[in-house]
C-alpha cells in the first residue's frame, strides 16, 4: 500500500520535470524573442553602453543559444535572476521583500475560501430547495461572475469611503487585510461551494448513505462520517485549481488596494519594461503553481487509492 503510494508520488514528481524545463525555456526566450538587443532590454533603456556590454558578457549573449541557456540555468540555481532595470537592486531582493505580503494575502484568501466554501456547500446540500439553498446558489453565481477588482472597489466604496470602517488600501496593520482577502476569495469560495454542494448531493443519494440512514444512524454521522469523505475528493481538485485563479486575482487585488506585493511589482515592471523583474515574477508564479498542482495531485492519490493505479 505505502509502496504503491510512494511509487505514484515519484512518478508524479518525475512527470513534472519536463514541464518545469519548458517553463524555464519560455522565460529564457521571453526577452530573446522581442525585437531589439536583449542585452539592452535587460540593462534598461537608460543604461550606458558599458553597462549593456557588461550584461552581454555576463549572460554570454555573444555565445551560442544553448550556452546562454546553460548560463541562465546556472544563475537561476544560485538565485541570481539579474538586476532590476529601475532600482538596480537584484531581482531576488525585489521579489523577496514583496513575497511575504502576497503570501499573506493569498494564504488568507485560500483559508477563507476553503473553509467557508466547504462549510456553506455542506450546509445547503442538506437543505436542497430551501430558501437558504437558493440564496447561497445566487451568491455563488455572483461570486464566480464578479470581477475581483470591481468587487474590491465596491467594498472600498462601502466600507472605507462611506462607512469609514476599514482602510482603503496599503498595508497598515491587520485591518487592511480584511477587504483585499474578501475580494480575492470571492471567486474561489463560490467555486468550492458549488463543487461541494453538487458533490455532496450526489453522494447523499448513494446506496451506502441510504443504508447508513436505514440502520438508524443520526444525520450528523451520516453527513460527516459517511458522505463527506467521499464527497470531498472532487472538491480537493477544484480547490487546487483555484490556486491559479488566486494567483491571477492577487495581481488585480494588489493593484486595487495598493497592496505592496509581487503583483504590484509585476504590473509596475510591465509598465516600466523592467524585463528582469518580469522574468523573475513570471517564473516564480509558474513554479509556485506547478508545485501546488503537484501537491494536490499527490494528495489526491493519497486520499483516493483508486487514482494511483489509473
Amino acid at each position, binding site marked *: 500500500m505505502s509502496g504503491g503510494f510512494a511509487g505514484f508520488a515519484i512518478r508524479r514528481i518525475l512527470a513534472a520535470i519536463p514541464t518545469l524545463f519548458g517553463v524555464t525555456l519560455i522565460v529564457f526566450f521571453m526577452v530573446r524573442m522581442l525585437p531589439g538587443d536583449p542585452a539592452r532590454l535587460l540593462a534598461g533603456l537608460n543604461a550606458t553602453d558599458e553597462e549593456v556590454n557588461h550584461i552581454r558578457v555576463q549572460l554570454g549573449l555573444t555565445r551560442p543559444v544553448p550556452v546562454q541557456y546553460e548560463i541562465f540555468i546556472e544563475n537561476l540555481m544560485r538565485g541570481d535572476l539579474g538586476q532590476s532595470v529601475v532600482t538596480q537592486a537584484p531581482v531576488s531582493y525585489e521579489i523577496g521583500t514583496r513575497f511575504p505580503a502576497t503570501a499573506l494575502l493569498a494564504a488568507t484568501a485560500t483559508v477563507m475560501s476553503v473553509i467557508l466554501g466547504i462549510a456553506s456547500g455542506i450546509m445547503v446540500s442538506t437543505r436542497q430547495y430551501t430558501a437558504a439553498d437558493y440564496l447561497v446558489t445566487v451568491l455563488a453565481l455572483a461570486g464566480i461572475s464578479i470581477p475581483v477588482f470591481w468587487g474590491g472597489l465596491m467594498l472600498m466604496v462601502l466600507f472605507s469611503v462611506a462607512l469609514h470602517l476599514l482602510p482603503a488600501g496599503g498595508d497598515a496593520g491587520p485591518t487592511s487585510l480584511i477587504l483585499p482577502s474578501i475580494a480575492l476569495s470571492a471567486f474561489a469560495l463560490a467555486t468550492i461551494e458549488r463543487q461541494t454542494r453538487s458533490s455532496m448531493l450526489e453522494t447523499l443519494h448513494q446506496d451506502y448513505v441510504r443504508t447508513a440512514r436505514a440502520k438508524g444512524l443520526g444525520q450528523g454521522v451520516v453527513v460527516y462520517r459517511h458522505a463527506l469523505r467521499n464527497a470531498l475528493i472532487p472538491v480537493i481538485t477544484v480547490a487546487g485549481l483555484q490556486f*491559479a*485563479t488566486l494567483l491571477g486575482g492577487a495581481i488585480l487585488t494588489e493593484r486595487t488596494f495598493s497592496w505592496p506585493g509581487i503583483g504590484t511589482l509585476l504590473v509596475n515592471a510591465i509598465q516600466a519594461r523592467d524585463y528582469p523583474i518580469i522574468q523573475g515574477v513570471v517564473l516564480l508564479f509558474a513554479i509556485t503553481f506547478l508545485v501546488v498542482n503537484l501537491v494536490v495531485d499527490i494528495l489526491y492519490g493519497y486520499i483516493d487509492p483508486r487514482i494511483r493505479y489509473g
Partner: protein
Amino acid sequence: MATSTRAFDTVDARPEREFHHPLAVLRRFWRNKTAVAGLTVVFVLAVSAALASAILPYNPDTADFNAVLQGPTPAHLFGTDQLGRDLLTRVVYGGRFSLAIGVIAVAGALAIGVPLGLVSGYYGGVVDLVIQRVMDVVLAFPGFLLALTLISLLGVGLPNVIISVAVSTMPVYVRLIRGVTLSARELTYVESARSIGMQDWRIMLRHVLPNTTAPLIVQSTIQIGVAILTAAGLGFLGLGVKPPTPEWGTMLGDAVNYLLSSWFIAAFPGLAIFLSVMAFNLLGDGFRDALDPRMKVL
C-alpha cells in the same frame, strides 16, 4: 486555462438520453428561466451596443468640462466621468469592445485549439505526447498570468489584447476536444469509416467533430465570460485597450483615482462586466442542462 469554474451537477440528471433532437433541446432550454434571463441580458447588451449611436444623445468621447464628475441625474443617468463624458453612453459603447473582444478571442481560441485537440486525440502516440507536453507548459502559466505575460511582450492595444486572451483560452479547447476525441475514436462508426479506407481528416471532420458540438457550445459560452473578465483585468491594469476607448476594464482603471468623491464612475462599468459575465455563465449552464446535464465542462 486549467481553472474549473463549473461544478459538475450530476444530481438532477435524468435517465440516459441517447439522442438529442434539436427541438427537444430548445424546448428544455426555454423552460429554464435563469438561462432565458441570461440570454435576455446578453441580447440587451449586444443590441444596445450595436445601436448605441442611434439610441443615445451623447458622443462617448466628447468632453464637457462644465459637467465633470456629476452624480447620476436625469440628463446623465449614470453620471459623468472626470472629463464630463456621459457614463451611460460610455458603458453602452464599451459593450462594443468588451463583448467583441470576448467573442473574437474565443473564436480565435477555437480556431487553434479544436484542430490541435482533434489531432492530439485522434492520432495519439508521439503527436499527442508533444501537443500535451506543450499544453502542460502553457498551462503552467495560470490563466490571467499567461494573458498578462503575453501582453507585456506584445505591448498594449486592441489586437494584442485579443491575441493574448485567445492564446490563454486555447489550452481549454485542446484538453476538451482531445478528451471527446479519445472516446469518439473507439465508436463503431468511426472504426468502420477507417476500415473502408476513409481519409483521417475526413473521419475527423465528418464523424469525430460532430461529437464535440455540445461540449463546445457550453464551454464557449462560459469561456466568453471568462475572456471578458480577462480582457477587463488587463484594461484595469492599464495594459489593455488604450484610452480613451470606452472599454469597461480600462474605464474602471481610470476610475480608481476618483473613487473617494465619485463612486458611480467605478460602479457602472464594473456592473456591466459583472452582468455580462453572469449572463454568459447562466447561458452556459442553461445550454448544458438542455443538452446533457451530466456533461463535464473544464
